[in-house]
């Protein structure tokens, strides 16, 4: 399941869905990305997320296909929110079910590392009343590079 939406999500319901479709799975690893109150030393009050609708799900689907080819996992679910998000809101969810926990951890981190550097989302923060587009994070490039060695 891959979804881009404005609505919030409930990790309890999502994990139950993932469990129900993965009876052979012994492990679930979930990632949730949040709107932090401090980013690069600036206090943040709100976040706006823009995306390229026609391209977003295509890229996320492609990342999940590559992850499934690489790791022994049963299911990968991804939700990414767009639009205005308050402080401490949930932004992104990646849930992975697998027979063994090592694959679930690696796959979930792989999907996040590629999502961060390939999926067409752009963040704009409200910092002290100013709207600031965020710059890409060089550590995300390094995180992705690890998988390409």
């Amino acid at each position, binding site marked *: 399941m891959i979804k881009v939406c404005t609505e919030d999500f409930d990790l309890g319901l999502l994990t139950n869905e993932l469990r129900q479709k993965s009876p052979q799975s012994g492990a679930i690893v979930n990632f949730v*990305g949040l709107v932090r109150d401090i980013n690069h030393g600036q206090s943040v009050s709100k976040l706006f*997320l*823009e*995306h*390229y609708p*026609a*391209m977003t799900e*295509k890229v996320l689907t492609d990342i999940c296909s590559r992850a499934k080819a690489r790791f022994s996992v049963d299911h990968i679910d991804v939700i*990414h929110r767009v639009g205005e998000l308050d402080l401490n809101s949930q*932004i*992104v969810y990646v849930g992975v079910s697998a027979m063994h926990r090592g694959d679930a951890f690696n796959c979930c981190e792989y999907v*996040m590392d590629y*999502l*961060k*550097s*390939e*999926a*067409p*989302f*752009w*963040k*704009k923060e409200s910092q002290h009343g100013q709207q600031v*587009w*965020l*710059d*890409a*994070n060089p550590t*995300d490039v390094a995180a992705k590079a690890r998988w390409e060695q």
Partner: protein
Amino acid sequence: MITLLFFGRLRELLDCQRLPLEITSAVDVASLRQQLADKGPHWQEFLSLQHALVAVNQTMAQEQTMINDGDEVAFFPPVTGG
């Protein structure tokens, strides 16, 4: 006719979200950047290789990727989702 789209900071800097453009024949991404640079100095700057990634028909493209009539070409800054 091709459709150009601009996202994020680029959309605001160029004050342009969507721009239909006539092309007389297939061009590559590098030539398209050049052609758009003629629209003015800030187009030249902001659409330079360092600032703008390109996707052709919703797939990341290279400088030599060919653009054909009817294609959707998107320019955007490095992504910052997640």
